[in-house]
């Protein structure tokens, strides 16, 4: 009989049960949810055994909302209320969206993000995305048999701050605790790298339904280091469909199709594109509602001809990423292909020619991102022992800067800086006696403010009147591990301070989210109060559990008095969490955080000393 095992004091890594964590690939065309079960990453299926959820949401007149295949079936019947490829609208104004003229939606050009008028009222892309996420959450909770502790949601590496923030807002609206926003190519690299024990420089070429990313990574045992990333946040498989759609209109001599006919033709175009991966030619025969007849044959050569420059368009960001990484195509050991659009033979061929080697296509381009996200979620949830974890170093895709005199951009954080990162820069006043200053935060590579994306504007007031150029205003940019920016400004002499989470221009204001949450819960007849109480209780539990674990390992870092103080803070928090008052729990959580700050600092300190004492990363097992 096997003996029961007892771990050494302080060595037991997880006294508690496996935490339910999933990875979600929120795609333009399809979305997936995956998890790690018994050490094996796998995509979760719906009731019909399907893993891909079409990213389509149908708002019905009776108040119902259909998501996925059911919604997809309504695309050509009720185009106005059936939203597909909503990812293209995330964090975007109407003017930023391409091909709006052929889209059947009733757009509302609201300030900041574009909105869509549906039979159920005006919807923001964040709300539409939240429906998709909610569907996946329910699938995951049914499949795993419990509430999710946290999720990793993937975003295109080239998503800017507004698009990332919008994605995080959608998750919040869907009732998900986001452990991390993870870049899609990085997620693919994790899945590929761990599966194949890869070492060296790899390129991940990720052509999705609506976005293109290229990431150059250096893989070594236990470390995934993104060296450079680039892309085009509005270029994807949809554009190939659109080219074919235009070609079909032209060759069938149709000028102005109705919304429904447009939808049907677009759906047909996608079908033809997919079939051309295997077939040399595909016939198209259909009768439109207008009575027009379409009778065409699409040859692969024609399709390649009309879309070749789209593939060329992807190679520009590839060149830029290599230049930023200081590498040549020949330095790349392998090219990992991700995204359904990379199935097209001419994409593989042109990418292969560029890198001088056939790209790696031995993994499923549809699921690899979700699988990588699930593996990362498993690590972030604390389900693996520390020495079994890997280190992931990712970068910010686009430079962040601030507007200076003359509409010029002063870059504060350059693209491809490893995150988290913070940089500060000093600015001064332009006029004598100037007491206020507007900080306009922008993202992009161009020198002119007008050519970059505006992220936020805020004012620093109360600067003491001085002669021009005498004040010293230090503006600090902090980008967290999700790639999200927060900005603060401080007058150095007087300490006058202004701080903003960057949201206003393109994101949703906090009160908007609160309103959406409220109406969402009313709709589901859920009680927001109950939910919020539960969230705080879970948070308190998490904090207590983590602290207990830390005390098990590091109680020696505290003297008797400190230990007693911490114990009593824990007891107070435990009492509060057992009660029913949200506010009390919040207050106790805050005071507990203050009480445990010193202990946390000492543990971090000990850990860093450990690093210097020579516990090398080679020891990390993965």
């Amino acid at each position, binding site marked *: 009989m096997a003996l029961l095992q007892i771990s050494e004091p302080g060595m037991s890594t997880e006294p508690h049960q496996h935490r339910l964590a999933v990875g979600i690939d929120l795609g333009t065309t399809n979305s997936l949810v995956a998890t790690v079960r018994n050490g094996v990453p796998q995509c979760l299926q719906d009731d019909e055994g399907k893993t891909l959820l079409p990213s389509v949401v149908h708002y019905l007149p009776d108040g119902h909302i259909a998501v996925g295949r059911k919604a997809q079936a309504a695309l050509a019947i009720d185009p106005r209320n059936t939203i597909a490829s909503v990812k293209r609208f995330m964090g975007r104004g109407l003017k930023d969206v391409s091909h709006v003229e052929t889209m059947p939606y009733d757009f509302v050009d609201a300030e900041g993000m574009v909105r869509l008028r549906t039979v159920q009222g005006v919807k923001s892309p964040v709300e539409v995305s939240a429906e998709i996420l909610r569907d996946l959450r329910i699938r995951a909770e049914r499949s795993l048999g419990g509430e999710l502790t946290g999720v990793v949601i993937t975003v295109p590496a080239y998503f800017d701050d507004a698009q990332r923030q919008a994605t995080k807002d959608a998750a919040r609206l869907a009732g998900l605790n986001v452990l991390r926003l993870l870049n899609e190519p990085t997620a693919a690299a994790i899945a590929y790298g761990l599966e194949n024990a890869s070492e060296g420089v790899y390129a991940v070429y990720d052509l999705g339904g609506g976005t293109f990313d290229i990431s150059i990574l250096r893989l070594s045992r236990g470390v995934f280091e993104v060296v450079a990333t680039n892309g085009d946040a509005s270029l994807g498989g949809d554009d190939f469909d659109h080219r074919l759609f235009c070609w079909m209109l032209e060759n069938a001599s149709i000028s102005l199709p109705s919304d429904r006919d447009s939808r049907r033709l677009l759906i047909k175009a996608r079908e033809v594109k997919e079939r051309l991966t295997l077939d040399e030619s595909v016939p198209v025969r259909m009768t439109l509602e207008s009575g027009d007849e379409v009778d065409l044959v699409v040859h692969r050569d024609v399709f390649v001809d009309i879309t070749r420059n789209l593939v060329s368009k992807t190679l*520009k960001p590839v060149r830029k990423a290599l230049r930023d990484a200081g590498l040549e195509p020949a330095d790349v050991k392998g090219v990992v292909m991700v995204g359904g659009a990379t199935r097209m033979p001419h994409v593989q061929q042109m990418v292969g020619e560029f890198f001088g080697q056939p790209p790696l296509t031995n993994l499923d381009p549809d699921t690899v991102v979700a699988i990588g996200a699930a593996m990362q979620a498993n690590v972030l949830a604390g389900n693996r022992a520390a020495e079994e*974890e890997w280190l992931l170093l990712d970068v910010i895709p686009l430079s962040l800067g601030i507007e200076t005199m003359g509409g010029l951009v002063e870059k504060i954080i350059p693209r491809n800086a490893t995150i988290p990162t913070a940089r500060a820069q000093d600015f001064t006043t332009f006029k004598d006696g100037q007491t206020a200053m507007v900080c306009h935060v922008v993202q992009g590579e161009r020198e002119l403010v007008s050519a970059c994306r505006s992220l936020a504007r805020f004012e620093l007031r109360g600067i003491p009147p001085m002669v021009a150029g005498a004040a010293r205003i230090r503006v600090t940019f902090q980008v967290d591990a999700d790639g999200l920016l927060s900005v603060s400004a401080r007058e150095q002499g007087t300490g006058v301070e202004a701080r903003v989470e960057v949201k206003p221009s393109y994101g949703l204001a906090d009160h908007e989210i609160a309103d959406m949450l409220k109406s969402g819960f009313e709709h589901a007849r859920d009680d927001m109060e109950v939910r919020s109480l539960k969230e705080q209780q879970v948070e308190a539990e998490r904090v207590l559990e983590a602290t207990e674990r830390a005390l098990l390992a590091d109680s020696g870092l505290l003297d008797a008095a400190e230990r007693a103080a911490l114990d009593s803070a824990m007891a107070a928090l435990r009492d509060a969490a057992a009660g029913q008052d949200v506010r009390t729990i919040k207050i106790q959580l805050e005071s507990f*955080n203050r009480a445990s700050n010193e202990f*946390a600092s000492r543990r*971090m300190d000990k850990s860093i000393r450990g690093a210097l004492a020579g516990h090398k990363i080679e020891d990390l097992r993965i």
Partner: protein
Amino acid sequence: MLDLKQDYFALFGLPVSFAIDMTRLEQAYLDIQARVHPDRFAHMPDTDKRLSMQWATHANEAFRTLKTPLARGQYLLEMQGVDPAFETNTAMSPDFLMEQMEWREALGEAREAADEDTLEELAQRLRASSRDLIARLAVALDEHKDLAVAADTVRRLKFLEKLQHEINDALTALES
């Protein structure tokens, strides 16, 4: 107790010098990130998350500074109380400034003519010139302890870096 104000060399357990063991630097950086990175603390209380972000940010900044010769040289000068003051102090040798002007003219012409070969050639000459200056900086800082020469060299390198960026931008613009 360790704190975020200690110098970058101490953070990585390296001697304070311009010459640097790049392998040791990278290894120490990865060792520290493996312990402080926010991914290690995603399931932990907010206090730990905040500390983790501060330390990971600090380690990234420290690594970036020590990794590149120009930033490392500038940092060593600042540690010794010398501000190379790129913006204000432009008392550079006339020869150097003349050379800069020539290079800028060449860059302008090549950009105008969309001449990729000339741009690449300029970039190469610039890299060679940077290498010479970095060697000079190493001698000034590590051997002669001549801070004035070091500051002058750092300023020159800064000029070259700007030019390098402009050449890269021009090359990128040609591609798109």
